[in-house]
C-alpha cells in the first residue's frame, strides 16, 4: 500500500505543471477561450512534444505506455489549469477505443497521429432520449456492401465540432434499449452525410450536435465484433470516469485552496474574514469533501484495469457519486465564500465552479450513479441470519 508517485511519475507531473505554469495563466487561457476554435493548436503541439498525447499508447504506436496513474496525474493538472484542449475526448475516449479494441491496421493508422498531435477525436454516443444509459441507442447501422450505413443524431459530443475522426455508436439490431446489437464505427468527420453544429458548453469547452444521414463506413472502420459493442462502451466510459475523477481532484483542490487564500487576504470589519469561525469551518468542510473525492479517485484509478466488469463498474459508480456530491458542495461554497467577486468571470474560482458542475453531469450525475451502485448491490453484502 503506497500512495506516493514514482520518480518517473513525479517527473511527468512536474513537466506538465511546468508547461501549464508558463503557458496557461488566467490571461493566457482567456485568450484561448475567446479564440475562434476555443482551444490552442500551439498548446496541443506542446502536449505532443511532452509525450502526453500518446501517454496510454504502446511505444510501437508512438506512445509511452503509461497506465491509469499517469492519466490521473495528467488529468489532475488539466483540472488545476482548466485546460480547454480536447485531451479527454481524443486520448482517453476516441483513442481509448482504438487502443483497446482496434485492429492493428486501425491502431497504426490513428494512434501515432494522435500522439503526434496531428488529429483529434471525439466519442459520439449520447442521444436526445438516452440521458445517461449507455445502451439507449437509436442511431442505426444497416449492413450495406461490405460495410454499414449510419443514420441518426448524437448530442453534446465533446470536441465533436473539430474532431478529425469520430467514434460513433449505432444499433445494428434489437430494440432501442437493448444491450445487445450495438456497434462501434470510426467515422471520418468529413465523410458525406455528417453534419455538425458546434457550440461551447457552460465550462467553455467545445461540443457539437452531430447529424448522420446515410453515412457510409467500410468494414475496416468497425471496432470489435458488430453487435457486441456494449461492454466495450462500458469499459471506455469507465476509463473516462476515472480520468474525469482525476480532473475533478485538480478542480476541487484548486477551489479549496483559492478559497483559503481569499479568506486569508480579504478584509472586512477590520479583520481577515478567515478569522470568522463560520467561514473556517465551511472551508474545512470543503477540504474534507475534496479529500474524500481524492480518495475515491485513487480507488477508481486502481480499478481501471479490473477484469471483473461488475466490480469495476460498481467502483466507478461509487467514485462518480462521490465526485458529483463533492463537486456541488465544494463549488457552491467556493463561490459563497468569495462573496460578490466569486460571481464574476474575472476570477478563476467561477471557472472552476463551472467545470466542477459539468464534471458532475458528464457520464452521469451523482444521483444516477448512486442508483446504479445500489442496483449492483453496493459494496457490503447483507449479514447472513441473526447468529
Amino acid at each position: 500500500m503506497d500512495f506516493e508517485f514514482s520518480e518517473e511519475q513525479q517527473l511527468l507531473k512536474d513537466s506538465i505543471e511546468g508547461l501549464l505554469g508558463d503557458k496557461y495563466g488566467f490571461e493566457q487561457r482567456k485568450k484561448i477561450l475567446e479564440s475562434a476554435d476555443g482551444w490552442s493548436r500551439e498548446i496541443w503541439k506542446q502536449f505532443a512534444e511532452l509525450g502526453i498525447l500518446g501517454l496510454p499508447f504502446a511505444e510501437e504506436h508512438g506512445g509511452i505506455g503509461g497506465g491509469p496513474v499517469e492519466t490521473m496525474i495528467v488529468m489532475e493538472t488539466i483540472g488545476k489549469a482548466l485546460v480547454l484542449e480536447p485531451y479527454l475526448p481524443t486520448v482517453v475516449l476516441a483513442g481509448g477505443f482504438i487502443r483497446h479494441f482496434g485492429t492493428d491496421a486501425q491502431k497504426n493508422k490513428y494512434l501515432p497521429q494522435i500522439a503526434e498531435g496531428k488529429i483529434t477525436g471525439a466519442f459520439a454516443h449520447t442521444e436526445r432520449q438516452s440521458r445517461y444509459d449507455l445502451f439507449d441507442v437509436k442511431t442505426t447501422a444497416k449492413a450495406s456492401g461490405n460495410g454499414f450505413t449510419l443514420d441518426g443524431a448524437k448530442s453534446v459530443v465533446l470536441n465533436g465540432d473539430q474532431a478529425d475522426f469520430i467514434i460513433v455508436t449505432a444499433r445494428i439490431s434489437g430494440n432501442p434499449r437493448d444491450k445487445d446489437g450495438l456497434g462501434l464505427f470510426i467515422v471520418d468527420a468529413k465523410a458525406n452525410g455528417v453534419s455538425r453544429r458546434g457550440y461551447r458548453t457552460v465550462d467553455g469547452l467545445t461540443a457539437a450536435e452531430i447529424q448522420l444521414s446515410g453515412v457510409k463506413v467500410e468494414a475496416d472502420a468497425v471496432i470489435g465484433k458488430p453487435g457486441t459493442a456494449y461492454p466495450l462502451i462500458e469499459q471506455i466510459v469507465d476509463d473516462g470516469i476515472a480520468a474525469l475523477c482525476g480532473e475533478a481532484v485538480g478542480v476541487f483542490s484548486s477551489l479549496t485552496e483559492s478559497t483559503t487564500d481569499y479568506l486569508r487576504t480579504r478584509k472586512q470589519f477590520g479583520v481577515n474574514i478567515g478569522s470568522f469561525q463560520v467561514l473556517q469551518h465551511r472551508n474545512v468542510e470543503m477540504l474534507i469533501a475534496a479529500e474524500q473525492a481524492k480518495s475515491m479517485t485513487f480507488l477508481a484509478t486502481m480499478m481501471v484495469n479490473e477484469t471483473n466488469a461488475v466490480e469495476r463498474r460498481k467502483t466507478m459508480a461509487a467514485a462518480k457519486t462521490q465526485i458529483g456530491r463533492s463537486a456541488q458542495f465544494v463549488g457552491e461554497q467556493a463561490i459563497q465564500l468569495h462573496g460578490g467577486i466569486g460571481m464574476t468571470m474575472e476570477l478563476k474560482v467561477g471557472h472552476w465552479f463551472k467545470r466542477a458542475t459539468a464534471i458532475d453531469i458528464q457520464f452521469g450525475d451523482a444521483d444516477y450513479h448512486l442508483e446504479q451502485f445500489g442496483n449492483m448491490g453496493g459494496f457490503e453484502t447483507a449479514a447472513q441470519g441473526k447468529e
Partner: protein
Amino acid sequence: MDLNFTKEENAFRDEVRDFFRKNVPADTKKKLIEGRKLDKADIVNWQRILNKKGWAVPNWPKEYGGTGWTAVQKYIFLEELQRAPAPDPLPFGVSMVGPVIAAFGNEQQKKHFLPRIANIDDWWCQGFSEPGAGSDLAGLSTKAVREGDHWIINGQKTWTTLAQYADWIFVLARTDFKAKKQEGISFILCDMKTPGITVRPIQLIDGGKEVNEVFFDNVKVPYENLVGQENRGWDYAKFLLGNERTGIARVGISKERIRRLKELAKLELSGGKPMMEDPRFRAKISQIEVELKALEMTQMRVVAAEGKRRDNKPDPASSILKIKGSEIQQTITDLLMEVVGPFALPFADEDDAGSNELPVGPDYAGPLAPNYFNYRKVSIYGGSNEIQKNIIAKAILGL
C-alpha cells in the same frame, strides 16, 4: 502508487480474521450484532483472550507487551476486530493510561500497572472532564495539594465512562495555582477504593447509565502515584489524546453495521416489499456506503503516511477521520432505527429492551432507537467535531 496489500499483509489479515472467527465468544458476538450493551464480564473475558494470544496491547512498546506491528498491520488488526465483530478493547487502560505510563511512568509503575492493564486485572477510567472543563479541558479546577507523602485531592469529574466498574482512575488535577492554566496540571493515579471518592451514575438519553460523576472529597493518595513530573500533566494528556489515531474512523464497525442494516432491510416490509427494494431507502444506504468507502481510502492514506513519519506528532488529517467517521456511524444508527418503523418506539428504558420485557415486534428492534440516541456521543467526545474543525482550520489550512 499501489493500493494493494502485500502478500505478507494479506496473510496477516487471514491469520487475524481466522483468530477472531474462532475466538470471539458467541454470546458476546451476538450482543454486538444486535447492538446490545456488553457487560463487564464480556469485556474482561475478551481482553484476556487477546492477552493470552499476545495481542492485548499492539500499540505499546515491545518491551511492555507490544507486538511491534507496522502501521498497516495495526490497521488490519483493528479493521478485522471491528468487522468480526469483536469488542473494542477498553480504551482507558490499553490506549490511554497504558501508553502514558509506558512513556512517562517510573519503573515501579511500569512493572506494577502495565501487565495488569494488558490482562485487565485493573479496570481503569478516565478522570479528565469536569462540569466546567469540557472542550476547554485545561480550564479544569479539581485540585491536588501535596501534604508530606500524599496528595489531597478535592473536586469533581464528570462523564466518567464506566466508573461504576473501575478499580483505578487517572486524574488531571491542578497542582500549581499560579502558573498558566496548561502549566499547573499533574497526572495522578487513584485507587477507586480510596475513602472520599463517590460515584454517582448519570442516565443518558438512550436510557443507559454508562457515564458517572466522580466526586473527590479530601481524597488522600500516595505521592508516588504521580506520573512523570509535577505540573507536566498537560503534556501527557496531549500525548494521550493524540495516541489513538488508527481506528478513530471506526470503518470496520460501520461496515459490520451496514451488513446488519441490509439484513434487516430485507426482513422489514414497506409497501408490501422488503425495505431493501424501496428505491429511496436503498439510495440512503448506497450514499452511506459510498462515503464509507471514501473514508476507508482516506484512512489508508493516513495510515500509509504514518508508516513513513518519523515524529510522533498527531497527523491533523486524523481529524478528518474523526469527523467523517462519526457522521457515518451516526447516519447508520439512524437508518437502522428507520428500518423497523414503529417498532423503534418501545421502550423508554434501554435496560428493558429484550431483557425485562418481552419484545414488541421483531426481537431485533429493541436496541435500535437507543443506539441512535447513544451514538450522538461520538461527535461530542474525544474532541468534538467542532474542535476537530478548529484543528484542521489551523493546522492544515493555516487560517
